[in-house]
C-alpha cells in the first residue's frame, strides 16, 4: 500500500496506518480508506444544541446545519461508496425526531447512491430505521473493526473519546482536535460542531494504547501535524 504514495501525497495528505491499512486522515477529522472508498466520521452529536436548549441551556441552534455542511463538504471531496458514522451521531435518543425538514433532506441527499452505516453509540443506542442506511453495533472490513467505544483491540478504529491535543511552543499554546493512533488502533476526533474534547494525556487513552509511544495527528488550519502524544498535554 505504501507504494501508492507519491511525494506530493506525503506533503499534502496525512496518512494513518492501522493494522497495515493506510487511511487518509482528512483535515475535517474524517478518515478515508481509498481502496474501499469508505469514509468514516465519528461523534456527529447532531441536535446537541436543541438537546441543551430543552434543559434550559440556550445554545444557538445552528450546530446540526453546521455539522451536516461540513459532512457534505468532505463527502464531496472523496465521493465515498460507503459512509460509516461511528456512533453518537445524534446527541440523545430522541434527537433524530428534532431534525428540521431541511436538515433531514440534506442528510438524505448525502445518502444517495452510497451505503450508509450508523454504528450505535452510547448517546444513540437505538436508532430508528427511517433515517436511511443500516444500523449496526460494529462493522468489520478486512483487518479493521469499526466500533464506537474503543476496547484497545488491534485493528480497531473507534470514536467516543473525542481526542484533542494541546501543544505549546515558545510560550504560545493551542489546542485542537486530533486523531490518536499507534499503528495498530486509532481513535477518531469528534466531527460535530458542538463537540468538545478530552486530552489525549487522559488516563482513558493510556488504557487503550498502553504504550506512551502513540501519535496525535493534530487538525491544523491547513494541514495535519503528527506530534508525539507525550509532547502534548
Amino acid at each position: 500500500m505504501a507504494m501508492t504514495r507519491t511525494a506530493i501525497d506525503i506533503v499534502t495528505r496525512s496518512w494513518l496506518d492501522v493494522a497495515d491499512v493506510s487511511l487518509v486522515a482528512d483535515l475535517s477529522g474524517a478518515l478515508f480508506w481509498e481502496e474501499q472508498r469508505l469514509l468514516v466520521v465519528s461523534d456527529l452529536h447532531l441536535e446537541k444544541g436543541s438537546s441543551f436548549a430543552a434543559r434550559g441551556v440556550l445554545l444557538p441552534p445552528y450546530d446540526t446545519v453546521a455539522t451536516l455542511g461540513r459532512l457534505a463538504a468532505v463527502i464531496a471531496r472523496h465521493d465515498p461508496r460507503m459512509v460509516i458514522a461511528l456512533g453518537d451521531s445524534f446527541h440523545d435518543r430522541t434527537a433524530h425526531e428534532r431534525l428540521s425538514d431541511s436538515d433531514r433532506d440534506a442528510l438524505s441527499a448525502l445518502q444517495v447512491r452510497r451505503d450508509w452505516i450508523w454504528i450505535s453509540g452510547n448517546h444513540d443506542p437505538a436508532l430508528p430505521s427511517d433515517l436511511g442506511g443500516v444500523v449496526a453495533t460494529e462493522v468489520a472490513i478486512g483487518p479493521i473493526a469499526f466500533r464506537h467505544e474503543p476496547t484497545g483491540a488491534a485493528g480497531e478504529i473507534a470514536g467516543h473519546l473525542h481526542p484533542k491535543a494541546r501543544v505549546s511552543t515558545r510560550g504560545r499554546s493551542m489546542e485542537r482536535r486530533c486523531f490518536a493512533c499507534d499503528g495498530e488502533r486509532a481513535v477518531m476526533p469528534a466531527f460535530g460542531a458542538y463537540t468538545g474534547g478530552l486530552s489525549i494525556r487522559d488516563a482513558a487513552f493510556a488504557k487503550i494504547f498502553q504504550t506512551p509511544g502513540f501519535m496525535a495527528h493534530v487538525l491544523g488550519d491547513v494541514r495535519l501535524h503528527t506530534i508525539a502524544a507525550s509532547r502534548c498535554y
Partner: protein
Amino acid sequence: MGGKFPLSTYLAERVRKLLDDKRAWNALPEQVRDWLSLQRDISKVPGVRELLVETFPRADKHYLVCYPFEGRLAHQTLGMLLTRRMERARVRPLGFVANEYALAVWGLGDMSFMIRQGRLDLNALFDPDMLGDDLEAWLAESALMKRTFRTCAVISGLIARRFTGEEKSRRQVLFSTDLIYDVLRKHQPDHVLLRGARADAATGLLDLRRLGDMLLRIKGRIVHKELDKVSPLAVPVMLEIGRESVYGEASDELLAEAADELVKEAMS
C-alpha cells in the same frame, strides 16, 4: 512601565509636548536630559504632531520602532495590524512588543533598504484604512475575540463558569464557547452576543477609537529615520522584548514546529 491601564490621552498629550519643548527639558532630571539630547543627536526627538519611525538592524534581525504615545492597548492593536500588512509587503515580520510610548516590530526583511527602494511605503503602512478589512479579518480569527465572547456568554447566562477545583466531567458537559463562537459567526453573524463581544473588545481591549484618532493625526506626518543601531529612545521598548510575551496568534506554524522537533529527534 506601570500597570495595565493605558496612558491617558491627556497625559500622552503632555508627554508629547514636553518632549517637543526643549526649554521644558530643564525641569527634567539630568539623566533624562542627557538621554533626550543623545536621542536628538543620533535620531530625532518626536515632534508634537508627527510620528517618528526608526528602522535599524540589530543582531540578525531588522527593527521598526515608532512612537505614537497612545498607550499599550492601542499599540498592541497597531502592532497586530502592522505585522499583517508587513507580511503582505514581504518584510517577513517575526513579532512585536508594545509599551505605553512605543511599538517595536522586528522581522527578517531589511526595512531600511526596502523603504529606500520604495518597496515599503510608510504612509501606506500606517494608513487609517487598516481599521477596515485588516481589522475585520484579524478579529474574526483572533483568540482575543473568542476570550471576549466567552465573557459575554457567561454574563448572559448562556454558559456557566467553571471554577477551579470543581469536578471536571469526563467529556465536556460544560461548553466550549469557542465552538459556539465559530458556529454563530457563520450562521448568525449579527447575534447580540457577537455584537456585545465586538463592542467590548473595541473599547476595552483594542482602544480602536484612540488608534483611529492617532492614525488620522499623523497621516502625512511620518518622519522616518534610518539608523545603523538602536536609538536611545527605543531602548525601553526593546527591553520589553522577552519580558513581555510577544503578542501574536498561535497558528499552524506552531504545530508544525512541534512536529518538526519530532522529525529532528528521529533523524539524530
